[in-house]
């Protein structure tokens, strides 16, 4: 036991009287990779934040490098060699690679940076990690995965012994993931202990020595990574309540709405083919980086297409630009509502009507009455609660209500194909149900084909007539009607 780098024992943590960790143990040996699994809210982040001294535990003991610590703060944790690498980058993109590796602690004296020295040391450390990155390149010009490796390099220059990686691969391509794993293998040889938080089960056997699963603040399973069965891990993560789609499979409708064949875009996805009937809601399920949202972006013309074909109600369509797509009867709801969806300073009526102005106008002039009419038509159907009526600024509405307005935008525009990316991200639970009902009802009534990209399996279960699962840029399986359930989805996507 005394060879352990870190040992957390019986850790409990309460926030405002609510206990979120109910006595969790965790150990980490030198040169070991421990994969930490669990659904959102299982307590993974809280646990590693306690290890990093970010938040104090309510009770329990922390032992790092054979010293038991009554209190651990961030500085002490850093002193003992605990470093966190997050999914989001913490670098200075306009500075060089070498400067980033020594960010804030540039070698030199009397306020002057010793450039030659710094570049030499940076080159050494990158060589140690067996990566080939130019130390004079601008950090911002590198790929995300390379920038993440820079952060690991920075941690190493600061003498890291325990490295916590919080979903580092979420935004990476396959090749970059493999490169990160090679770096991790290298660190293992140097005796660095790593805690690796992930959602991707296939990564566990590749990179980890042991797996620990958290669920609802309890440690429910700790096993050797090599022999760990995927089904066992999934069941441990979910508990036993697996969601099932209660709806019957839809009666097959007449026409084909959207058909894509051998669709591909660079490294993001390839050979994606699917057919969506008129009135059907199909979910494309996959974790971030699986390529699911990228497929929708490409159909809409936001991302270059490098191969394949798209047909809309039998007619060939070549994705070029959002303008082209929206005037060809395609609607697109982006995942990032604030950045790409809503016009914050404009009224709800305008936000709803913006895609239909052409239809509402005569000789280039919009009839404001039509705008208000459109709003009242949809505010009832979508249960939008805008207390101050059609002129209220959209930014003053709740996330759920804003999302309903943006959905109404495309319903009003009478699109034939609706593409939705993470339609309920940041939406409260109550509004979520409304939104699913609305999408399903509207699809059936208007006969439009709906394609939803989502990383939320619950959403798939509650929304989809059919689910396609994507992983690493490819469609890997398909579930229809009652066979759509959380367990099979997650295990197929991982």
């Amino acid at each position: 036991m005394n060879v352990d780098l870190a040992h957390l024992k019986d850790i409990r943590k309460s926030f405002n009287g609510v206990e979120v960790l109910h006595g969790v143990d965790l150990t980490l040996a030198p040169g070991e990779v421990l994969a930490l699994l669990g659904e959102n809210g299982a307590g993974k982040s809280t646990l590693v934040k306690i290890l990093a001294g970010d938040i104090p535990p309510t009770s329990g003991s922390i032992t790092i490098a054979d010293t038991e610590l009554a209190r651990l703060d961030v500085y002490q944790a850093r002193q003992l060699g605990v470093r966190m690498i997050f999914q989001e980058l913490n670098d200075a993109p306009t500075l060089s690679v070498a400067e980033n590796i020594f960010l804030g602690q540039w070698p030199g004296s009397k306020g002057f940076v010793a450039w030659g020295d710094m570049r030499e040391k940076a080159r050494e450390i990158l060589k140690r990690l067996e990566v080939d990155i130019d130390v004079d390149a601008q950090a911002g010009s590198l790929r995300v995965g390379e920038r993440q490796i820079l952060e690991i390099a920075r941690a190493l220059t600061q003498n890291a012994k325990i490295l916590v990686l919080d979903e580092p691969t979420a935004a990476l391509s396959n090749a970059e993931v493999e490169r990160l794993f090679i770096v991790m293998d290298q660190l293992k040889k140097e005796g660095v202990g790593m805690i690796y938080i992930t959602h991707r089960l296939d990564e566990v056997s590749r990179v980890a020595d042991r797996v620990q699963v958290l669920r609802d603040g309890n440690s429910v399973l700790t096993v050797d990574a090599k022999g760990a069965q995927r089904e066992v891990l999934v069941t441990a993560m979910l508990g036993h309540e697996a969601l099932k789609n209660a709806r019957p499979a839809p009666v097959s409708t007449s026409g084909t709405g959207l058909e894509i064949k051998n669709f591909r875009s660079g490294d993001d996805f390839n050979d994606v083919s699917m057919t969506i009937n008129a009135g059907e809601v199909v979910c494309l399920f996959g974790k971030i980086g699986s390529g699911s949202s990228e497929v929708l972006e490409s159909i809409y013309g936001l991302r270059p297409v490098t191969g394949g074909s798209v047909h809309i109600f039998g007619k060939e369509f070549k994705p070029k630009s959002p303008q082209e797509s929206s005037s060809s009867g395609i609607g697109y709801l982006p995942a990032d509502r604030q950045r790409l969806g809503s016009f914050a300073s404009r009224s709800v009526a305008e936000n709803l009507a913006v895609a239909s102005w052409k239809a509402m106008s005569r000789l280039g002039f919009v009839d404001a009455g039509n705008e208000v009419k459109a709003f009242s038509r949809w505010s009832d159907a979508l249960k939008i609660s805008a207390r101050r009526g059609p002129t209220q600024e959209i930014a003053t509405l709740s996330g759920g209500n804003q999302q309903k307005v943006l959905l109404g935008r495309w319903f009003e525009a009478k699109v034939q194909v609706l593409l939705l990316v993470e339609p309920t991200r940041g939406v409260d639970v109550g509004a979520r149900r409304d939104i699913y009902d609305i999408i399903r009802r509207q699809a059936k009534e208007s006969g439009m084909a709906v394609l939803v990209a989502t990383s939320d399996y619950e959403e798939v279960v509650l929304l989809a007539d059919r689910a396609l699962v994507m992983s690493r840029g490819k469609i890997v399986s398909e579930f229809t009607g009652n066979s759509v359930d959380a367990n099979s989805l997650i295990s197929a996507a991982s």
Partner: protein
Amino acid sequence: MSKTTEVEKDKKRSIPASAPLMAFFVGLFIYFSVASEYFFDIENFRNIAVALAVTGIVCIPGTLLMIAGQVDLSVGSAAAVSGMIMANMVNKHSIAVGLVVALVFGLTLGIINGFLVTVVGVNSLITTLGGLATLYGIALLIGNGQTVMMRNFEWLGTSQPWGVPLPVLIFTVIAIMGAVSLRKSTYGRSLYAIGSNPNAARVVGIRSNRLLFITFVLSSVGAALAGAVLCSQLSAADPNAARGLELEVITAIVLGGASLAGGRGSMFGTILGLCTIGILNNGLILLDVPTFWQRVAQGLMLIIAVSFDSLRQKLNNQRS
């Protein structure tokens, strides 16, 4: 029923964005009326209107640009170049040739500005700041740094059909066209959308680049027209006559409630802002305040106006 009454009540309760400026304008108006016996006079109001018309012609497309989140600083120098072109053409050829060449110059400049901003992707502030310097130099080059006198071209700046000065008439027509297209046309609504969220405008299928391009052209043509009117008023083209025009234009627009960040603003607000600057300048002259103070007052007003804009944005962010 109860729903509609609630909506109406809320409408009444919300204060229009231009209310503070309106109050300031009225206060200033009353103050000057009391302080100077020459202020409240139809002839004086005519003077104010004539003095504002040139700035106003530039303010209308300027407001369209600002609402779309862009700015055109080259208008003052563009007006100067246009005036120099006018004077030379009128002296050597004819008024018609002068007007055509000046407007073609405006069109060309607008196309260049529009191209640099929407195709090359340069920030409009920097592009048009460069334009400001370049064009001022060109204006000096054309006249060799001297004022160019001209003959027989007073009608554009000084004639008074139906008792209304022609420049004021031109401004009024442009203002009405601007206000209507801003409020009612798909073009105007799209400008609001582009200014409010350029990324979302692209995603929703608005042809942002094309519309911005058109608006830059309108701005430069407006500046060229203003330059022609100005030199007709003066019977001479002075390369320095329109210096600082861009500052006055931006002050009026921002004072009128348009947000520098885009997405907000109205023609009514801009015109009110313009009138506020007009009576302030006029009132200070009537009260025998040295003209240097006009510059100070105008600069201060711009600072106050943008401070208001920032505070309003902060407040809005807190609320949402």
